[in-house]
């Protein structure tokens, strides 16, 4: 933000579509390079081939998986059969897992975003006692690996009777130190203190000011935090693995892994085609969310990195 020396009033007008809009690029670098495109194209292949493999193999029967070429089509097109079987296998447990995942995402990631937004805003815009301590503790917490906490969290929650309930997944998901940091950085620059003072002079309460004024200025930052919180809860594996023993509460990740694990062992019942199809189904919503919201999160992220 060192370069943004424009008067504050200008900043206010453009804050909702923030992200650095700096004049850039040397004139020499506008020529497209074919070599570079090809090299990067190779990396693109590395990124896409496994996903393509997954997609292709979701259209195969289990027999075709073993007998046909990995990146080619199977003898029959079984995608829809696979989807139906995935959704109905064992009385539709997959649908149950999908519902669980949605519950954890909506309450967990939604709550995480709300808490991070409130706290980040409070840290950025109020000079309260203990502010520095809060900030130091939260930053320190980012450096503590989740490993150190997983087992004790489980023991603590089991004493509180929370294990094997949705709360065991939701409560830990409510904390996003990264989200707090991003909103803190974002709010510092996006919300002029003068604006808040003006609102106070008009007699608006602190929360009213927050919900009517500040929250709009923070939107790109909030969308970014929400999206990353959604990814974190949607993809969460370690926490539910530890906390849940009842398959009825599994999210998709743990459930899929259990399906895979049943291919080995004494009473092995491989259902590779269902694991693959289920994987595809569990990727689609999250990828779609990223693609649809990309304008928001890309500008939110760039604002966050300015501070670094």
């Amino acid at each position: 933000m060192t370069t943004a020396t424009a008067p504050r009033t200008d900043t206010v007008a453009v804050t909702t579509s923030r992200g650095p809009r700096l004049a850039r690029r040397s004139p020499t670098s506008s020529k497209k390079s074919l070599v570079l495109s090809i090299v990067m194209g190779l990396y693109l292949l590395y990124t896409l081939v496994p996903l393509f493999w997954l997609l292709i193999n979701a259209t195969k029967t289990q027999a075709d998986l073993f007998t046909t070429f990995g990146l080619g089509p199977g003898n029959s097109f079984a995608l829809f059969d696979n989807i139906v079987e995935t959704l109905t296998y064992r009385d539709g447990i997959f649908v149950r897992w999908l519902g669980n995942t949605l519950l954890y995402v909506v309450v967990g990631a939604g709550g995480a975003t709300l808490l991070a937004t409130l706290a980040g805003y409070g840290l950025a815009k109020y000079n309260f006692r203990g502010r520095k301590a809060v900030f130091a503790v939260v930053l320190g917490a980012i450096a503590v690996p989740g490993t150190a906490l997983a087992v004790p969290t489980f023991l603590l929650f089991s004493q509180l009777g929370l294990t094997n309930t949705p709360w065991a997944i939701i409560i830990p998901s409510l904390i996003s130190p990264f989200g707090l940091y991003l909103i803190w950085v974002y709010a510092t620059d996006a919300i002029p203190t003068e604006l808040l003072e003006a609102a106070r002079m008009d007699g608006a309460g602190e929360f009213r000011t927050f919900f009517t004024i500040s929250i709009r200025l923070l939107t790109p930052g909030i969308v970014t935090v929400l999206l990353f919180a959604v990814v974190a809860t949607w993809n969460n594996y370690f926490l539910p693995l530890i906390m849940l023993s009842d398959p009825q509460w599994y999210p998709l990740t743990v459930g899929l892994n259990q399906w895979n694990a049943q291919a080995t062992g004494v009473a092995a019942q491989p259902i590779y085609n269902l694991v693959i199809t289920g994987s595809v189904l569990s990727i689609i919503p999250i990828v779609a969310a990223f693609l649809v919201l990309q304008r928001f999160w890309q500008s939110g992220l760039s604002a966050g990195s300015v501070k670094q």
Partner: protein
Amino acid sequence: MTTTAAPPPALRPPRRKRRSRIDDRGWLFVAPFALVFALVFLAPLAYSVYLSLFRDQLIGGNAFVGFANYVTAFGDEKFWDGFGRVGIFLVVQVPIMLILALAAALAIDSARLHAAGFYRIVIFLPYAVPAVVAVLMWGYIYGDQFGLTRNLNDLLGGQVVQPFLPEWMLLSIGNIVTWQFVGYNMLIFYSSLKTIPGELYEAASIDGAGAWRTIFSIKIPAVRGAVVIATIFSIIGSFQLFNEPNILKPLAPNVISTFFTPNMYAYNLSFAGQQYNYAATIAIIMGVITAVIAYVVQLRGSRQEAR
């Protein structure tokens, strides 16, 4: 709405640096976060320190043993075996991943790429794929039953590529982690590159600097802060390595032991062996080592920046 609420410029005092008035209403906003944070971060942290100082014994039950668990851990070959493995992983995989990410970010930022926006979003895509799905997918691809590996070996004739051999295993895991996280790091670097002011490029081109010179003299120094942050997160991620080996385990049960990484060791100690106290000890040791290394990296990173 954005413009009407702002006071007219003339009435404002000239850009006060910072409001110094104490305003405790900030706690209204911070309190909900702080409460949950205390429950899921501080309490477990304190509890794990407490656990690590006790031992569940057959005779005498739960007894205070001081640092005995730590002494045991420092002489525990299984722990050091896993530790060495994530150490090697860290030293090899993290640089490769970050260099790839930086190269991709520079390429996308260079304006010499056709459809740069498309590259950016596609390379980032794997980050959105759940780790479980990424690992299962790669695990199947690695497998010799219906994976691409089998197709490849058929093509080459013989068992040339065998990702599940013990000596290949770490490489196979490294590939999965790289695949998942290059895009995320690329995006961090790219966002940082976007903040370089245009005047710097103009000055460089007036001085006759070419594309490579611009990269090494302007762009790379500018993203140093982002690189430090990405390095720290990658170190934390490496030391915590769990998902990939744990999910691959059913596919390669004889190669991946229960103590393949320290995190797997702690997990198996507590959930297969009920040795909660010792598991907490292992977790704390890993936490401290990680925090120290992250701190050193940050110090070094910022010192170089100041120079």
